[in-house]
């Protein structure tokens, strides 16, 4: 074994109790850091999976970011327009099939049309406000998790009745409808159809399950009183993190407002950034406090070993060798603490993950945790860095002592 490492290990071993306290300090810091990272990232990933991945990654709507220019504005340098009447009815996306075909040529994912209508569903004298989505059952599995969320029926069953409808399970429960029931769907401008319940889904998010229903595109067009209307294209990309770039390209190419899930939930994502900053600050603080323990023990060792340092210098060990020796002692504590912290962190994660609870808003009944090797590597890196810093100062001081002063003092 290397001389420096050998002496360092001997020093650390010979102060068992102090070393154990310092190692325990680092281990606690690393363990809780791993647990916190797993908890924070787990909840973040769970949130994204539940609320964002369950929805289309990109929604192309029949709006434009800038209002279209009036002919007079392009004709004259200065124009003042009065009493411009907004359209009462939305036009929808023009040539949706052609746009979808163009997007499918390059899009790394799937696209599906939809028609969104606000309506009231009535059954057994109970009325519930609902968002009705007109969907294409053939394309829908590519852009949403609906097919996996169905508890009863299938998407193809939308073809089995004239006006077939799939309800969220909480919505069905609210109005007391079951599969086979005939419900009335009525919009605010008077359109009204009788629809047969052919299926039920459970998304796991209360707000969706109690206020959403799916019908065929043409059924929704009837409710909107607008034949051929498609007011949204929903896109799902292979890599959800690429949604923003893909969305920008779609908007550039189609001219329609295209909103990625990141843009739609910008406020939440910025909250994640703040949350992560807070998390890493706390983790850093924990490890910093642990490094004080390491600093303390290395200082104690160098103080107690002043005579040995002088002897080793008098024998011919250089300052850099001695400095390395005490830095390695600090790193041994950091490494041992880090490895113990791995075990502690994993146990804490298992313990935290085993706690059951019931949320009224989500299906989750366990704390979501993310197990990632990166959490362990980062915690170890920070532990070793702080141990290095904690060991370096006393090591430098120890290595620079004048052996004569100590030998004279000892004699």
């Amino acid at each position, binding site marked *: 074994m290397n001389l420096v490492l050998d*002496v360092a290990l001997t020093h650390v071993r010979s102060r068992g109790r102090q070393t154990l306290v310092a190692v325990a300090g680092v281990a606690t810091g690393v363990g809780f850091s791993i647990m916190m990272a797993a908890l924070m990232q787990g909840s973040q990933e769970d949130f994204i999976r539940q609320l964002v991945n369950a929805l289309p990654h990109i929604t192309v709507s029949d709006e434009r970011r800038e209002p279209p220019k009036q002919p007079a504005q392009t004709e004259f340098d200065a124009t003042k327009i009065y009493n411009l009447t907004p359209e009462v009815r939305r036009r929808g996306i023009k040539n949706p099939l052609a746009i979808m075909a163009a997007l499918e040529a390059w899009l790394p994912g799937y696209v599906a049309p939809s028609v969104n209508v606000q309506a009231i569903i009535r059954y057994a004298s109970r009325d519930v406000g609902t968002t009705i989505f007109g969907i294409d059952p053939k394309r829908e599995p590519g852009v949403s998790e609906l097919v996996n969320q169905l508890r009863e029926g299938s998407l193809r069953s939308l073809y089995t009745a004239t006006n077939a409808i799939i309800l969220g399970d909480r919505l069905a429960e609210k109005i007391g409808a079951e599969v086979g029931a005939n419900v009335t769907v009525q919009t605010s401008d008077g359109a009204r159809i009788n629809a047969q319940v052919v299926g039920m889904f459970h998304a796991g998010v209360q707000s969706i399950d109690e206020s959403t229903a799916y019908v065929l595109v043409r059924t929704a067009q009837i409710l909107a009183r607008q034949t051929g209307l498609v007011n949204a294209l929903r896109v799902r990309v292979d890599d959800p993190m690429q949604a923003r770039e893909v969305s920008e390209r779609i908007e550039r190419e189609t001219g329609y407002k295209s909103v990625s899930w990141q843009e739609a939930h910008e406020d939440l994502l910025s909250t994640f950034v703040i949350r992560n900053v807070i998390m890493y600050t706390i983790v850093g603080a924990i490890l910093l406090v642990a490094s004080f323990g390491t600093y303390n023990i290395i200082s104690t060792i160098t103080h107690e070993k002043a005579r040995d340092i002088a002897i080793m210098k008098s024998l011919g060990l250089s300052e850099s060798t001695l400095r390395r020796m005490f830095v390695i002692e600090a790193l041994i504590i950091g490494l041992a603490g880090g490895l113990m912290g791995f075990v502690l962190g994993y146990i804490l994660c298992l313990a935290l993950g085993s706690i059951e609870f019931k949320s009224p808003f989500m299906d989750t009944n366990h704390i979501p945790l993310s197990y990632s090797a990166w959490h362990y590597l980062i915690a170890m890196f920070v532990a070793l860095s702080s141990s290095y810093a904690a060991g370096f100062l006393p090591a430098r001081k120890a290595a620079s002592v004048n052996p004569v002063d100590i030998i004279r003092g000892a*004699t």
Partner: protein
Amino acid sequence: MLDRAAPKKSHAPHLEAPLIEADNVTRILPGIVPTTLVRDINLKIGSKEFVAVTGPSGSGKSSLLYLLGLLDMPTKGEVRIRGSATSRMSEAERARTRLSELGFIFQFHFLLPEFTCVDNIVLPMRALGRLTREQMRVRAEELLGSLGLGEHKYKRPDQLSGGQRQRVAVARALANDPPVILADEPTGSLDSKSSEQVFQILRDLVDDNGKTVVAVTHDLDLAERMDRRIHLMDGAIVSDD
């Protein structure tokens, strides 16, 4: 290693080729009132010399030894080892010179308490790195055997008597086979029997192994038995015979 079969050498000094040379060396401790430890020291120490440095307390004996051993730097003047000026050496070069050219013995053994006798002796060999691990171990065991400590080689310093510890310290000083041994009151903390043992070992180092020994001592009887005596007073050499 001590080689007792080697022929006895003459005690005559070899001043024509000095191993250590002090040229007008002065050491002043800085402070509000600067303290002169040694001043205007000029001396040459050749191979196979057995030198006693004597003088009253505070006369600068140990300071001179530390300067000759490169543990301290002169304020003025030059210390040369084998003709090489040491004032321009880096800290690492001085450390390397100490490892290979000089062996130290202190009044108190100054062994590392957590290490066995063999490990204490192997430490400077490992720092120098000339031998394999096995060669180092064998040499350490032979050194201990030659100093009558063969049965104590795997004991720790706290398991040995004062005389035994000092003999281990002698073995450590010899680990890298340096030509010069510097001893600061090597018998100062020992009883008369152990003192005699250690003195005889030093004598044998010069006579049988061709080492140069420079020993600081208060004991004038012991100094009388050495080949050369340098007497210091108030930091200056007052006699060298």
